[in-house]
């Protein structure tokens, strides 16, 4: 059905690209989580902060990543800022994922009873300690399933950075496809690696979830 020997040749090239894919996804995710958390906490304060963070979330939810990539990659040099394509990719995906993470945290935060805040301050805990010891642990636990999904999504989204000439796994695959004229086998290899990676991320998320809920 498919040519195993051809796939053996494609795979090493794809795995080279995979490191770029994973690096972008990891960096973007590492930026997006604290960034989304800040947005969610700000949102809770209401007023202008809530309006701004709400607007931000709507913005990322309702515009395509592709347009954001083009905007940053072609737009910033016009403003005299020359970020590498890789940095542009990380920036856009962090911005995007940050919005979704903010939504996730906002939802979890809303599910934590106000009484907990009151109880913690009644115990004389300082605001920072209150967040650190009472709210955040619960927040992360409740957000974990959705964050795991988001981590898988971000890996899939990195497949778009090829349009701004980042040599991620998908781009490497496309170049091989053009070169070999063998779309089927390239696709099988590419799809298999993506499936493995997203599945591993999903499993890892579930594992962490189980560990943490056990600790709790």
């Amino acid at each position, binding site marked *: 059905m498919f040519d195993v020997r051809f796939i053996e040749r494609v795979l090493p090239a794809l795995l080279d690209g995979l490191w770029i894919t994973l690096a972008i996804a990891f960096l973007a995710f590492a930026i997006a989580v604290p960034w989304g958390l800040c947005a969610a906490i700000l949102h809770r304060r209401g007023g202008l902060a809530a309006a701004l963070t709400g607007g931000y979330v709507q913005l990322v939810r309702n515009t395509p990543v592709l347009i954001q990539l083009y905007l940053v990659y*072609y737009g910033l040099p016009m403003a005299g800022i020359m970020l590498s*394509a890789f940095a542009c990719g990380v920036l856009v995906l962090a911005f995007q994922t940050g919005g979704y993470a903010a939504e996730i945290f906002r939802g979890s935060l809303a599910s934590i009873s106000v009484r907990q805040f009151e109880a913690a301050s009644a115990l004389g805990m300082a605001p920072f300690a209150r967040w650190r010891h009472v709210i955040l642990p619960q927040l992360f636990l409740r957000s974990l399933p959705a964050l795991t999904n988001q981590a898988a999504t971000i890996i899939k989204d990195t497949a778009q950075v090829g*349009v701004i000439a980042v040599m991620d796994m998908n781009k490497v695959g496309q170049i091989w496809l053009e070169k070999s004229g063998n779309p089927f086998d390239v696709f099988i290899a590419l799809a298999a690696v993506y499936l493995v990676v997203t599945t591993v991320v999903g499993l890892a998320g579930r594992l962490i979830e189980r560990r943490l809920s056990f600790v709790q």
Partner: protein
Amino acid sequence: MRSYIPGTDVAGSRWRNPAANDTAAPLSRGEFLSLAAALLVTGCSGSDSKSAATALPADASRLDIVIARDKLIVGTYSTSPPLAFINPDGELAGFEIDLARAIAKDLLGDSEKVEFVVLNAAGRFPAVLTGKIDFGLCSTSITGDRAARVAFTPPYLDTGGTVIARRDAGLTHVRQLNDPRFTYALLNNPGSIERAEQELPRAKTIVLDNPAAILLATKVGRATAFNIDRAIAHQYVADNPDLMLLDTSGTVYNHVSGNAIFLKPGDFKWWLFLSTWMNELRGGSRYAQYRTLYLRWFDKEPPPQRFYDVSRY
């Protein structure tokens, strides 16, 4: 069916790279609608051509089939100006379209007796091999591996990649681009990637998906230079004063390849007709027509009819 055309009415000013022979052919809304319409009426037109064909023996040449059908069916692109694109009136136009019409004129006596089937890069060879079209005339350059699958006529156009650079980079020759300080933008096709690896191994290369992207990347300063089809390079330079053609002498960029008509292999009669026709056009009795078309679409003189000066012999 008339509908508006993306690309031409705004762009108008400038031609798009016919994509170094290999890019995907986008489908405009106009085409989409006409294709949708074509799908709906497919029963009629399909059976039409079939009934004409069935009157002929099973091993009849495409030439006889076309004459019996009294219509030529040609595969083309629609987004590679000035070769084949949709003009502001919503009609296919371009150098390749005119060539197809000229063939119809000689074969069937009427340049209007052509039906164009818009193809994309991935679908062009299957279209001739399955007999859906009589031949393909869509920015396809002859290569050895392709020649093993389809038959080619002699080329109707010399093409090949050349290089355009930003004027402010201060380059004159392509070789100067071979430096890690410079970035070279090209499309994802094996030919241009190979040429870049061979000629500019030290330059950084970036591979983008469409002609708009490589030009844009160069104009905003993401790339120093880009690879473009020779036939239309001068048009780009004329339209963009900040860009210039680099001297390509002594490099692979000075080599040409030929764009040719391709057809299903094995049909000698059909191939002989098309090949003879093409030879006459480029170097024989129809050279005047070739020159007219060339001037019209490329705005410059075509290569001479003979490589030697005829008056001396």
